[in-house]
């Protein structure tokens, strides 16, 4: 652990103050940071990560709805659950490539829309600079949804049945039962998963972006990870390192938050 984390974590902070390649580093102080912050491509990347944050409530909402329905002792519930969970285990790269074909200008989605005489809805999902990041978000939700479903189902299953029974005897309707009785009881899990998903969309979405849009068109769907990768591939190690340090800073705050939420959960 010391080697895989300790060494690079210290080194990346050091690198972020140097320019040039790693064979002949030049001390530049905070210039890397200044350069990055004034680079429109970086701002766009950061902004895109923020846009992806929107996928978190959507995913948690749909995931919760599915989990509540599954919790209703529905027939075949286990089978539904295993189908919904399947995307989560598949390689994001392979799936991302499939989505890139589905969403092409003349891909399946647009062709189907045209067949259904809804050609007006057909869009250039990956080539339009506003839609590209939306497509990435859609793919993230598609793949991560099953995780939320499984986590929520397990949480609902572990609740004592007495409270729900009592609410039913008191005449609570289905919706009341779900929203007033069940959901509040699993709130700690929802909060923890929310933090984990925020960490995911800020720092673990490279695969999706790389195969779906490669950050394009232009930089419109770039994310911080992709920015790091690109600077690094171009030989600007210092730039890459300074963004990595910023990303690490954000992640640390979130990791601290997740540890705190976890503790709250245990106290309860």
């Amino acid at each position, binding site marked *: *652990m010391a080697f*895989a*984390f300790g*060494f*690079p*974590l210290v*080194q*990346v902070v050091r*690198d972020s103050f140097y320019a040039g390649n*790693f064979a002949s580093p030049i001390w530049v102080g905070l210039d890397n940071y200044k350069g990055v912050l004034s680079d429109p491509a970086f701002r766009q990347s950061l902004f895109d990560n923020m846009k992806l944050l929107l996928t978190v409530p959507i995913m948690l909402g749909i995931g919760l*709805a*599915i989990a509540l*329905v599954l919790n209703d002792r529905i027939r075949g519930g286990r089978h*539904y659950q*295993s*189908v*919904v*969970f*399947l*995307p*989560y*285990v*598949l*390689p994001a*790269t*392979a*799936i991302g490539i*499939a*989505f890139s*074909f*589905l969403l092409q200008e003349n*891909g399946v989605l647009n*062709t*189907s829309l045209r*067949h259904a005489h809804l050609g007006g809805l057909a869009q250039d999902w990956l080539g339009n600079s506003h839609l590209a990041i939306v497509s990435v978000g859609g793919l993230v939700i*598609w793949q991560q949804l099953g*995780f939320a479903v*499984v*986590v929520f189902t397990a949480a609902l299953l572990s609740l004592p049945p007495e409270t729900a029974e009592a609410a*039913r005897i008191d*005449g609570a309707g*289905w919706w009341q039962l779900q929203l007033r009785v069940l959901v509040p009881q699993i709130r700690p899990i929802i909060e*923890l998963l929310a933090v984990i998903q925020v960490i995911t969309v*800020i*720092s673990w979405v*490279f695969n999706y972006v*790389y*195969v779906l849009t490669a950050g394009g068109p232009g930089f419109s769907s770039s994310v911080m*990870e992709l920015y*790091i*990768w690109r600077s690094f591939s171009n030989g600007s*190690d210092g730039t890459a*390192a300074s963004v*990595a340090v910023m*990303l*690490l800073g954000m*992640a640390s705050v979130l*990791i601290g938050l997740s*540890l705190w939420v976890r503790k709250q959960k*245990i106290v309860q």
Partner: protein
Amino acid sequence: MRTTARHGIVRVLSQHAFLIIICLAALYPLWFIVSTALRSNAAYQLDPTGFPSHPTFASLRNMLFHQPLPRWMWNSFLVTVSSVAVSTFIALLAAYAAVFGRFRGHSIFISTSVALMVVPPVTLLVPMFVFMVNSGMVNHLQSVIIFYTGLLVPFAIFFMAGFFRTIPNELIEAASSEGAGPFTIFRRIVLPLSGAASFTLIVVQAIWVWNELLIALVFLQSESSRTLMAGLTQFQGRFTTDEPLVLAGALLSILPVVVLYLSGQRFFVRGLTAGIGK
């Protein structure tokens, strides 16, 4: 319960309808991969939505016999097996020491592991790459095996420590009062009990390594050293006008994962959600 029977039926039907729609959405991209991989490119270009009414194995055969895919798959396999084996071994010993040895700072050790579990690998990328260049390991599988092992260990320790805590302490105490040393206890008592947990851990780690892209892309850039996922992105760039061929590659990369999932689903669910459970 004041809902009438008819209300009940409507509710159950709409619940099933909702779930079926979700499942179709979850499965459609997979169907798209399978069906397209079995179609000829000409048919696909004519209509991407079509059904493979004249299935052909040409793309799959091309992938297996005329493309570097088997080589990349073998690389992925080697990388997966080695890094998972090493990290599981380390985690078994470390978690055993932390839970039963109770050395000083063992709880800090575990919470450090929890925190490191979510450190974004991309932040470690640059220094690790520099290190690998200096030690001449770039384009050799060892480079990613070492890195992956390091990344896997925190989760593996966290997971195994969580499991070890469920082993009753009396069992260990009884054995040690009969004069068994720590290694004997580990081998004779703890290891045999951890079969299912270790298997779960191995499955989860294997999936993670098999699916990893960023590190493989950066560290293994020569044609012969690529992993399967990095290779797939090469196909995507190379065969821009032959979607069935690219998807045949994607299908072959997904297949091992799906087979593993179908054979040991509960291990997946338990292992992958372990980070969030109690």
